[in-house]
């Protein structure tokens, strides 16, 4: 009798896990994920047909796409792509568009650093000029 109950419980677990797997592969629609870089993204896959579809939302209409890297690297799966939106925002992905990074922070950081360097150079020359000028007077 015990053996029969164990069999029934095992069968029930097996059926439950099969149904769950079927749900995730068949429907495959995951809830949209939100992140700092991309407003929201969702993916769906249909392994039976060998097609994987990723939907990603960007902040404005798409203006340009650039695939970066040479062909050899792309075959190894190291491909990177950049996307430019109508708003001037640049996103990049290193995994065939599955995940995206917004490059705004990088641009702002390097741009600000450059601006600060220019300011410092200007201030240095300005100060040197003033010192020389006043030393002659």
């Amino acid at each position, binding site marked *: 009798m015990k053996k029969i109950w164990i069999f029934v419980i095992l069968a029930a677990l097996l059926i439950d896990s099969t149904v769950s797997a079927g749900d995730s592969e068949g429907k495959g629609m995951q809830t949209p994920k939100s992140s700092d870089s991309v407003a929201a993204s969702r993916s769906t896959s249909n392994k039976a047909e060998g097609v994987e579809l990723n939907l990603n939302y960007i902040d404005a209409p798409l203006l340009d796409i*650039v695939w*970066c890297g040479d062909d050899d690297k792309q075959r190894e799966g190291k491909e990177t792509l950049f996307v430019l939106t109508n708003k001037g925002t640049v996103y990049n992905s290193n995994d065939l568009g599955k995940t995206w990074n917004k490059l705004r922070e990088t641009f702002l950081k390097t741009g600000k650093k450059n601006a600060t360097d220019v300011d410092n150079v200007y201030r240095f020359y300005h100060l040197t000029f003033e010192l020389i000028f006043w030393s002659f007077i």
Partner: protein
Amino acid sequence: MLQSPVDANMIIFLGSTGVNWITEDCGSNIRVINSGRKIKEFLFHPSERNWMLASSYTTCDDFDDEPCKIYKELYVSQDLCETWQFLEDYVIQFSW
């Protein structure tokens, strides 16, 4: 976004406010281009990796004691945007 015809890992990002960026490794490292002027157009050399042409419009700040004139100037860099040499003014179009 402009990709180099010689090096597929090199991309230039032209900014709208006069600050521009370049990456030589597909975005792993991005640095600001040293131009000193607001770049209007940009052109890679078809075979020389580090050569590029850039055009820029004059601004009224460029003229101290004379009337302001707005026209396009052409610059060339042969060291990956580190230094720029003035080539020509009153340029309409250009190519390598």
